[in-house]
């Protein structure tokens, strides 16, 4: 897309705002519509635009596959870990009430952490799937 000046400039300009919007959807998820799943897809779409503009190899330099794998697994562990924390604090699995000083604070903290875990995993998995298809046929594009 080297000759599409307008697309490149507008795309570059949009990427940070898309990411910011993703973070808004992520962390506003416990008050309004949104949450980790939607935010993860939006966040990953910023990288998809980057790939479309600059090619798979350029994007994979920013977000190498091994980091994405760690993020994908880390998100699941964060989600499950919140549940384990409430187990260790003597409540049932994923009972957020015991996580904070009082139940409402605990619910608040619990849902934010869990949604963040979802967001991380969805972002990384969407990107991994996208790369798996986009990197086909690119001789050096494959990170492995």
């Amino acid at each position, binding site marked *: 897309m080297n000759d599409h000046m307008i697309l490149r400039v507008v795309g570059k300009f949009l990427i940070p705002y898309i990411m910011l919007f993703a973070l808004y959807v992520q962390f506003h998820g416990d008050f309004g519509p949104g949450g980790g799943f939607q935010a993860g897809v939006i966040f990953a779409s910023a990288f998809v635009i980057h790939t479309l503009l600059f090619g798979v190899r350029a994007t994979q330099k920013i977000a190498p596959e091994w980091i994405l*794998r*760690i993020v*994908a*697994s*880390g998100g*699941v*562990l964060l989600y*499950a*870990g919140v*549940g*384990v924390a*409430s*187990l260790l604090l003597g*409540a*049932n*699995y*994923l*009972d*957020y*009430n015991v996580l904070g000083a009082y139940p409402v604070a605990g619910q608040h903290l619990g849902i934010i952490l869990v949604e963040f875990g979802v967001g991380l995993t969805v972002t990384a998995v969407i990107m991994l799937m996208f790369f798996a298809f986009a990197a086909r046929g690119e001789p050096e594009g494959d990170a492995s």
Partner: protein
Amino acid sequence: MLMHLPVLVVLAPLLAAPIVALMRGATWPWLLSTLVSWFALLCAVLLLIQVQAEGVIIYTMGGWEAPWGIEYRIDFANALLLVLITGLASVVMPYARLSVEQEVGAERSPMFYAALLLLSLGLCGMTATGDAFNVFVFLEISSLATYTLIAMGRDRRALTASFSYLVMGTIGGTFYLIGIGLLYVMTGTLNMADLAERLPAISDSSTVRTGFAFIVTGICLKLALFPLHLWLPNAYTYSPSAVTALLGATATKVAVYILIRFVFTIFGPEYSFGAEPLAEVLIPLAVIGLLSASTVSIGQPNIKRMLAYSSVAQIGYIVLGIAMGTAMGLTAALLHVFNHGLMKGALFMTLGAVMYRMGGTNLSDMQGLAKTMPLTFWAFVIGGLSLIGVPLTVGFVSKWHLILAAIELGWWPVVIVILAGSMLAVVYVGRVVEAGFFGEARDPTRREAPASLLIPVWILIFANIYFGIDTRLTVDIAEAAAAQLMAGGVVR
């Protein structure tokens, strides 16, 4: 920690899977997966003991009481299934090391073990949960893991096998989801106990009947009831040996359990067999499936494929037991779920050992096996006898109960069908035994399979004999489970 057992069975593999996926090499992922599956088995056994001592166990997720929250509800039926799943995972995991190293390769091992853990976690979750939608979530987890695992087979045909299972499995899952949606529209609840309470009042409506039809059809696709079994033979034949062992022993059995749960607990036997023609639909399909799949398996040159068709036939026996709609039939079905898991697990693992040494599982690879690999061969013989239903093996116990249940109803033609199915099993197992005994070994220098493959195989073979002689444990639990299920609704 004892009160958290219902969630620990599912949680342990869930925590281990992402860690395993990040590891490198083949040894550490294998070691962690093995330890975790042993821990899950310990939890499942303790759960079964707890259910025997205290009755139904209810665990509310996140402290939200059902029907608002998701609850896990363990009674005899799913405690038995949990022991089967985790038990099979516990013998398949140690067995997997050598066989996976050869068939999948060290590079893909971490992902393989992660998928295997996800498969067992999905199956445990489906079994443990008391929420109908939660079943769908775990069904998808286990199915996605299964598609991946099948595709890792060495043969390139594994890819098409995996894809066709993906299509069929997704249709099954979608049907189930549509059914749940219809029930949710009518009752406003997804909790199984709550559904069971609300459904009788509105069971006349066509929406509920449609929901029933969708759910039963969807699950029958997953449990491979004839004629919805077409995905199964290829999926079992081309997936890696360890995967076939776990899948063949547990995956369809969990689908059977879900069918039992819906037919007996949620809709209740009066509705399923009275208002709906469930028996009239299931019995012919089970009988045709039983006879045709047994007949087809006789002609298979690939023994793995032969056993896959035999699995379709065994599902016929189980569904026959369910379709009787009596406590005895249900006892026989639950017994056969457990016992067939033991025998198919053992037989597929035996074939994995043959695969490891001979590089294939065709009848020609089995020639002269009695001389070159006697321990593997005798394991196959005993497993085969169990499959036929010879006394002193588990196969006899469940077929005996199935025949008793049929006689109780006076269904003599069904008794004849069951016996005919066993005769066909004699023929298809006999072919292999004959080749092993009297065939000329292709390469007499081949040695016995290594101990790390043989020990898990023989543990299962001993389980086949032990539970065939000491039937107190399995029969008592199956009878208690059947009594709970026949009571309809939910035992408080």
